[in-house]
């Protein structure tokens, strides 16, 4: 009896192990081709940012007026030069540091705060919900860029402040998305089933409500990464973001705009990098959402 039980035990554990392996997030992501493509694009951008001093000459702000407006591959400049003769590839790599940091950081700030506020508002309901959401409405009433400008003037320039300004301006949007979903999820029968067991409010939020709202958050978050890059560009454009001459994709794009007729490659290059990053994050976000959704198996 004991022996047969032992045997059973082993085969059980094998079965479970196998299932666990095939159900792990990474193995699911590996099966998702488009998500892998997104992951690849994002990884390349991150690698460029991290390896910037190694793969470039390390001087993004070095000016060579003689070499201004060089085209691709001219005089050893892979992507040409800008209006001051600065190597574009170097500036793109260093700009990636700023742009990616701002995009991810601002989305994280806005996302985490917004999700927490949205969860609290939706779950508690009543007066808490009303107060929180009216504040959010108040923030939403300002145009996004105007709000960022106000925050930047209050906080002063600098990368941390750019992240904060864009992040804070994003909070109400995240909070709204999450709150709406929480209102639906909290009335589901499985939440009642949890209440019957006597689970705590924290466990209810963390184990049942949050996981069931997360796909909306991810979709909105990946879209938001794109808009954060653009917002940073807009702030830099107005002279409120990163101080010149520090490179960011937004500032390169802006300087390229001034000479679109004579040297279109400046705007095109920075625009392309923004585009690839945005697409990469979107594909990756879709993939992560599918991985987290048990109903999406393949």
């Amino acid at each position, binding site marked *: 009896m004991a022996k047969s039980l032992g045997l059973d035990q082993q085969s*059980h554990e094998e*079965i*479970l192990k196998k*299932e*666990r392996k095939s*159900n792990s997030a990474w193995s699911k992501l590996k099966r998702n081709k488009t998500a892998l493509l997104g992951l690849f694009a994002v990884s390349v951008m991150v690698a460029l940012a991290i390896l910037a001093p190694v793969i470039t000459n390390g001087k993004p702000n070095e000016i060579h007026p003689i070499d201004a407006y060089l085209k691709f591959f001219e005089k050893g400049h892979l992507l040409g030069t800008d209006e001051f003769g600065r190597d574009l590839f170097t500036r793109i790599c260093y700009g990636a540091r700023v742009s990616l940091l701002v995009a991810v950081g601002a989305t994280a700030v806005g996302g985490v705060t917004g999700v927490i506020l949205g969860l609290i508002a939706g779950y508690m309901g009543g007066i808490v919900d009303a107060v929180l959401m009216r504040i959010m409405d108040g923030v939403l009433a300002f145009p996004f860029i105007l709000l960022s400008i106000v925050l930047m003037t209050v906080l002063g320039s600098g990368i941390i402040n750019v992240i904060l300004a864009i992040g804070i301006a994003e909070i109400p949007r995240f909070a709204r998305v999450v709150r709406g979903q929480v209102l639906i999820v909290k009335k*589901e*029968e*499985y939440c*009642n*089933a*949890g*209440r*019957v*067991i*006597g*689970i*705590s409010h924290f*466990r209810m939020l963390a*184990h*049942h409500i949050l*996981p*069931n709202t997360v796909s909306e958050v991810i979709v909105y978050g990946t879209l938001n990464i794109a808009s954060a890059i653009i917002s940073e560009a807009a702030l830099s454009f107005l002279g409120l973001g990163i101080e010149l001459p520090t490179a960011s994709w937004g500032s390169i794009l802006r300087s390229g705009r001034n000479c679109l007729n004579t040297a279109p490659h400046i705007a095109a290059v920075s625009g392309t990098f923004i585009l690839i990053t945005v697409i990469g994050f979107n594909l990756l976000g879709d993939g992560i959402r599918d991985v*987290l*959704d*048990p*109903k999406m198996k393949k």
Partner: protein
Amino acid sequence: MSEKRVILQVKGLSKDFQIKGKKLGSKKAVLHALQEIDLDIHEGEVLGVIGESGCGKSTLGRCLVGLHKPTEGEILFEGKSILGVRAKDKLEMCRNIQMIFQDPYSSLDPRHTAADSVSEPMVVHKTVKGRAAMEQRVLELLKQVGLDVQHMNRYPHEFSGGQRQRLNVARAISINPRMIICDEPVSALDVSIQAQVINLLKKLQKEYNLTYVFISHDLSVVKYVSDRIVIMYLGRIVEICNGGDIYKNPLHPYTQALLSAIPPECPDEEKERIVLQGEVPSPIGERKGCPLAGRCPQCMERCKNEMPRLKQQGEEGHQVACFLYEKK
């Protein structure tokens, strides 16, 4: 049979819902879902609750597990009130009374695996410690309800309705409750699966000496499982009787009409159908008199103005709320 111990006592339970008017500025109306319910539930019995849609069966069940807060009245579990207890004691109460929900499709979290769902009550109540022990216990429970190890890591959408309801059963019994409220546990299932789940419930009841409150609108199901049957109409209990008596000796006119609506078992069998006239009155707003007064074929003047109380009638344990039997 020896004197039965009362495990749960319901005293004068009422539940009102506030209904907001649809139009701007219209008055709030009050829906009386439950009115003055008095009920004793004995240890180890299966108490069937039947009644048509909207009569308050589910509201009663939900009040018993604390999902609804009653407007009035008391619920005593072994003499202790379960209403308004502190958080710590509440957990203890939750452990005693569990619930199986009507809809197996929505009562399991779609993002939790079967093992997660079944182990959750034990995690919350800290009855099992350690991962290996938990896995062992979950497997034990799954086997008890007719599932197996390969089901552990599956998600709810990968199960059939019957299997999901088995999971709900496993979840409910995982923390050894004394009592389980079954809120129409089989009404969403195919007839063949219904029988399986009911037999499973019966088997578990014998094994653990569980007390069931079995809510259903299916007369044959209720008759099959119940020791005693409560018949509800419009938020009130109109009759309480022992399992077999309902067919032999239905007393309340509503019960009689309800029973006559069961299709005959044999096509040749002649059956007299009592059809109640009119519609079920709305539970919104105040009303005096017997809830059935407008539709009852034997309605008297008194019925329209006075509410009959549940009174012992005939055999032991047979109670009915009707003036027809009070004169005698």
